[in-house]
């Protein structure tokens, strides 16, 4: 009898419990429905595909074309700077014009040309992993690869063998958006110069470098960026003539609709990884830093779905 009583009480309790959890309230049903949603990718870890020097984990989305103009002026101070060159504005250390086209949402092709050593480069970036909003994937990973060619001779005979003009760069970009304000990236990079520049004995053909960069958003469309790179190259770390320095850039980033502007100061003269990692000989200490900027403009080349033909500014 006692057993039956207990069993019945349990039965009753179970019944009420079930009624509470699985059905009656629309609220409970709603939360069970929304719980089915999959974790979303974290988006917009960075505004643009590049920070100051670094590639970010952002890729150009399918059918979009990113047009980049990057400029580095001359030394602001030091022997080449000062008022006579309007603090470097009269000179240009490097000018890069580039295009990035999205083949898929995760894969883009890149093409660009630098003034610095007339480097022409072609490459790709592939977004392998996406950080997830629920933390199931704590970071994003993208791979970038590039091949560069210096088509014009820098010196009379160094480029006799045409393969000497070719350089390579391979990079893994690991980024994490810590909050809606702060994103950080770290990029191990492998660089190969078939004929390493500057043309000095002991200069390595191959070396590894690491980049670290961060963005901190002050407002929704305005942020601070800092970008740093260090080549692990015994030649670059030990040579005294010429002496090499680690590239360091600081700047601001402004987004206005389809444009992203970056305004920065850096000691690096060159814009392409193959150049600035290999050959940054200017130092912040000596006033050899310069104003630079990047304008990134995104065009959507996808099929038009807009029924009303209004002029698109996106």
């Amino acid at each position, binding site marked *: *009898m006692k057993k*039956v*009583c207990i069993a*019945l009480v349990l*039965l*009753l309790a179970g*019944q*009420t419990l079930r*009624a509470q959890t*699985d*059905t*009656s309230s*629309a*609220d409970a*049903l*709603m939360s069970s*429905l*929304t719980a089915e*949603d999959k974790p*979303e990718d*974290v*988006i*917009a870890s960075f505004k643009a595909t590049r920070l100051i020097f670094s590639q970010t984990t952002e890729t150009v*989305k*399918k059918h*979009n074309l990113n047009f980049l103009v990057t400029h580095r002026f001359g030394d602001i101070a030091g022997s080449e700077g000062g008022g006579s060159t309007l603090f470097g504005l009269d000179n240009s250390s490097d000018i890069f014009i580039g295009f990035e086209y999205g083949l898929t*949402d995760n894969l883009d092709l890149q093409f660009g040309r630098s003034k610095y050593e007339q480097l022409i480069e072609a490459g790709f970036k592939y977004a392998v992993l996406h950080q997830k*909003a629920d933390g199931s994937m704590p970071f994003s990973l993208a791979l970038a690869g590039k091949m560069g060619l210096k088509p014009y001779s820098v010196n009379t005979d160094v480029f006799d063998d045409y393969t000497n003009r070719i350089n390579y760069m391979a990079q893994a970009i690991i980024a994490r958006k810590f909050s*809606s304000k702060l994103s950080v990236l770290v990029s191990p990079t492998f660089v190969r110069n078939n004929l390493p520049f500057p043309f000095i004995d002991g200069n390595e053909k191959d070396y590894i470098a690491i980049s670290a960069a961060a963005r901190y958003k002050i407002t*929704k*469309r305005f942020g601070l960026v800092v970008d740093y790179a260090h080549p692990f190259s015994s030649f670059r770390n030990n040579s005294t003539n010429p002496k090499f320095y680690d590239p360091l850039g600081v700047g601001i980033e402004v987004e*206005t*609709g*389809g444009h992203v502007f970056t305004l920065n100061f850096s000691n690096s003269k060159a814009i392409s990884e193959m150049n600035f990692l290999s050959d940054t000989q200017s130092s912040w200490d000596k006033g050899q830093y310069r104003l630079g900027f990047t304008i990134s403009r*995104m065009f*959507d080349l*996808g099929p038009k*779905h*807009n*029924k*009303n033909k*209004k*002029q*698109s*500014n*996106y």
Partner: protein
Amino acid sequence: MKHLLILLALTSSLLGQQAPPALYVSKNAAITLYSDAPMEDIEGNSTDGKSVYNASTGELAFNVAIRSFKFQKSLMQEHFNENYMESDKYPQASFKGKITEKPDVTVNGSYPVTATGVLEAHGVKQQRTIKGKINVNNGKLTMTSEFMVKCADHKIEIPKLVFQKIAETLKITVTANYTAYNKNPTK
């Protein structure tokens, strides 16, 4: 004593099932937002809205993940999420309220309805009265509604830098197909 207990158990379980709440569920409600801006029309679509409707009480709940809205241009979608809706902070938009008319869902027909409740988007709750229509077709319900949302009401800022690319008022269109919710599905 034993019989009494069994009787008690039986009645209580019967009572529990006696008045099953007439719950209707939609798992893929289509929600469209449309901005007729001077420069460019912007349209976002989600087919991922969730809704629960209690036909006996008139209770109505809607929920949609902001990230589920798809736009023609990926940049629009990113700006929508990152700058306007801040979907990492406010991942959902929702409506919770009641339908005043409570139409008889056992009779086929088209019923104009009015829902009163709280619309929450971008973390801001607004008391709203929204008109819509319920179509009943052999136990299947379709709810449609079209209403306007002012960005300013939900503290969605439109910066001057973007040159009025989005309108200050968005048109929201909702179409939800409901099926009766079977609380103890037979397996």
